[in-house]
């Protein structure tokens, strides 16, 4: 198949950027989207041009590196699929494809389609863990965890930290990412002691990083390659409100 690409090119963080048009002839429908870009880049290099920079690593939809806005949709048209798992057969011959980086104040562009998503790491730093120093852990079976509970926790734990939720959100909110971790750890017995302190700190960090609030548009859930549900956001809100409003959790005191 033959395609026309409109790709965001920007030589550096502070340099101005613009959409540049490229022709991509002889594309096989069995190629993955990134393999299509590889082919384009190979040609650019041969023509002495600078290839298009984009993040990628595992190419199996699990590392969360790939992060492209394809025709206005993060990770492209295929639901529950990361860019690297998207195949050209989901596009029609002759299509014009616009490719942009994920956009948010918290995701400054590094170059072309590459952005800096360190803000997501800092949200985890703020409390997205269970403080369990190496050593001294009890036998894994001393905790009985109902299957359905673990399964729900796992649904949320699948988050690959790609930031598509932020890219899709009209508010540029990181609620789904944050809520996924709050839900994963908050559902497990191990996660209870820090449950309320965790949510307060992570939400606070979310605000510090200049992510937007959540209007419940639901776009994030649709863009998420792991189909994480906005039910997690409801859980996060509930825990946050419990932590702030109802006494007894002592969370407010712990939060700062």
């Amino acid at each position, binding site marked *: 198949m033959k395609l026309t690409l409109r790709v965001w090119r920007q030589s550096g963080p502070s340099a101005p950027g613009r959409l540049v048009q490229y022709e991509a002839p002889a594309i096989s429908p069995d190629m993955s989207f990134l393999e299509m870009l590889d082919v384009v880049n190979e040609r650019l290099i041969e023509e002495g041009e600078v290839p298009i920079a984009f993040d990628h690593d595992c190419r199996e939809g699990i590392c969360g590196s790939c992060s492209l806005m394809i025709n206005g949709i993060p990770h492209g048209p*295929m639901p529950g699929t990361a860019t690297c798992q998207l195949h050209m057969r989901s596009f029609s011959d002759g299509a014009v494809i616009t490719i942009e980086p994920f956009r948010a104040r918290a995701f400054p562009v590094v170059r072309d389609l590459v952005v800096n998503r360190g803000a997501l790491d800092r949200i985890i730093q703020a409390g997205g863990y269970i403080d369990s120093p190496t050593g001294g852990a009890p036998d894994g079976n001393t905790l009985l*965890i109902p299957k359905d509970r*673990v399964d729900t926790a796992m649904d949320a734990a699948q988050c690959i930290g790609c930031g598509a939720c932020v890219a899709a959100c009209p508010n540029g909110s990181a609620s789904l990412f944050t809520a996924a971790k709050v839900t994963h750890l908050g559902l497990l017995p191990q996660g209870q002691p820090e449950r309320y302190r965790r949510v307060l700190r992570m939400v606070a960090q979310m605000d510090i990083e200049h992510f937007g609030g959540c209007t419940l548009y639901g776009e994030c859930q649709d863009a998420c390659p792991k189909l994480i549900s906005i039910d997690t956001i409801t859980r996060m809100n509930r825990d946050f409100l419990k932590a702030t409003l109802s006494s007894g959790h002592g969370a407010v005191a712990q939060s700062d």
Partner: protein
Amino acid sequence: MELRSRVPGGPIEEKWDRHRFEMKLVNPANKRKHTVLVVGSGLAGASAAASLSELGYKVKCFCFQDSPRRAHSIAAQGGINAAKNYRNDGDSIYRLFYDTVKGGDFRSREANVYRLAQISVEIIDQCVAQGVPFAREYGGLLANRSFGGAQVSRTFYARGQTGQQLLLGAYQQMEKEIGRGGVTMYPRTEMLDLVVIEGRARGIVVRDMVSGKISTHLADAVVLGTGGYGNVFYLSTNAKGSNATAIWRAYKRGAAFANPCYTQIHPTCIPVSGEYQSKLTLMSESLRNDGRVWVPKQKGDKRPPDQIPDAERDYYLERKYPSFGNLAPRDIASRAAKEVCDEMRGVGEGGLGVYLDFADAIKRLGVQTIRERYGNLFEMYQRITDENPYQGPMRIYPAVHYTMGGLWVDYNLMSTIPGLHVIGEANFSDHGANRLGASALMQGLADGYFILPATISDYLASAKLSKVDPGHPECRRMEEEVASNTRRLLGIQGKRTVDSFHRELGKLMWDYCGMARNATGLKKALSLIPELRAEFWRNVNVPGSDTELNQALEKAGRVADFLELAELMCLDALHREESCGGHFREEFQTEDGEALRDDEHFAYVAAWEYQGSNASPELHKEPLEFEYVRLAQRSYK
């Protein structure tokens, strides 16, 4: 150079305890004064960085991705082994030890493997405490599945994303320490050289991949957890960024490289579909629990699978290995697949594929159970191939997956350069000539959480470290060397892209140093590789500059190293005139085509020492004694 394995004395069950007692400790008050560099944020690196920081050391951690959470460990699917015997099926530390030594085809160090089996038990507990959502039974107890090369069910898993969940567990512990200030993280930062001063590893030279700035980080000890080098084959199941650069540059600074030729070819991957293919996708081996592997009995049978009656199918693994059947170890399953394809009985266009059939399992267990067990793998398969594995069988073919070889380390995980420790897939590890499924995650975490934090204190407490500062002439010299190397790559401005060289190298390695090797092929490769390398340095085209994010430049540096490593792999493969595990020499096989070991001459670790760019490396041998597991021809019949 002499290889001192430092294996403690005493009965194998007591070695590790005794050693932990005998090792020197760093006084808690002094830990703060020691800086440790951890290169790599995978299971090995992240768990080490977190644990060292928890102990009080100052830690700096480096990775080339934009976040430590993206390390290649994230892609591990199937599971992690532990000798818990939760299934009451006769498992034990000793059995895991036995299986691993046997699975490694008697080319690993008994004491290390035993320690690994001992620690496996603590790993699961540690991960559960971190909130890793391992699969559970309805009663709330931890679930298990069985995995290739074992007859007991000892593999713990989190759907098909075990590596992801384990890595996130370690990553979160590390982020916690970063928040505390114990760990400083340097993402998008690539190690390009090792700083050795007065014979000790004292730091690394890195390139900031965003600004291109080259700088030196100094410390009291350096830890490499930089993963495997399977990408030397271009097409592999490894992440695109996985590379040998860190360990290769350390090798050139004097660290011995052990068993470079031991590569694992994984039997269950999605077959290649075209020239443009950029990587191969693994279908977790756990699929072999319920899937049956077969090919048509007659050559070139082009009928669709559903039209081939059972009588005309050859379930060759079940036929050849009745007791292990479809769960035969990876090296064996992969070679068996190659054989039937060589006999022209392969399926799919190109004939490079075999069927992995779930029809019976779905009849027996129902679609729901199968979906629960493998749902995401089936989806992945359908997404890539556009075929529905719930209806027809999958097509699979072996692909390069794991490298058992790596930098040589002693019982303390220290390389032949004092102060340079190597953990995870980057070291030559405990897997001998073949790794059993679900044992790399186990090893990476054992190294990072439990072994290194204990052994590194012995080094730090006993080493007399002189004060060095970034102004040290050695640092300047190395930074300049690294900088000129990058400038050189950019200066060539030839005709061919880096990828075209990488592809050619990969093809060459797959043909001559892949699933089956022979002297003539290896000699051929040894003559071709230097030519290719020469052309690379003459004709590669690396656009852009070295003061910006330049992915072509990053690739170029890595491929340049692969072009050198490939030669060492072939050299090692050629010298090892036996077949063992992942290293199959056609000249050395039993009449029924099984690997034929030569314990008399080759029961040793081959550790290669760099002798300069135009001298061939020197071979050192660490003899392997087997006091507990009797040397025997491996049989899975």
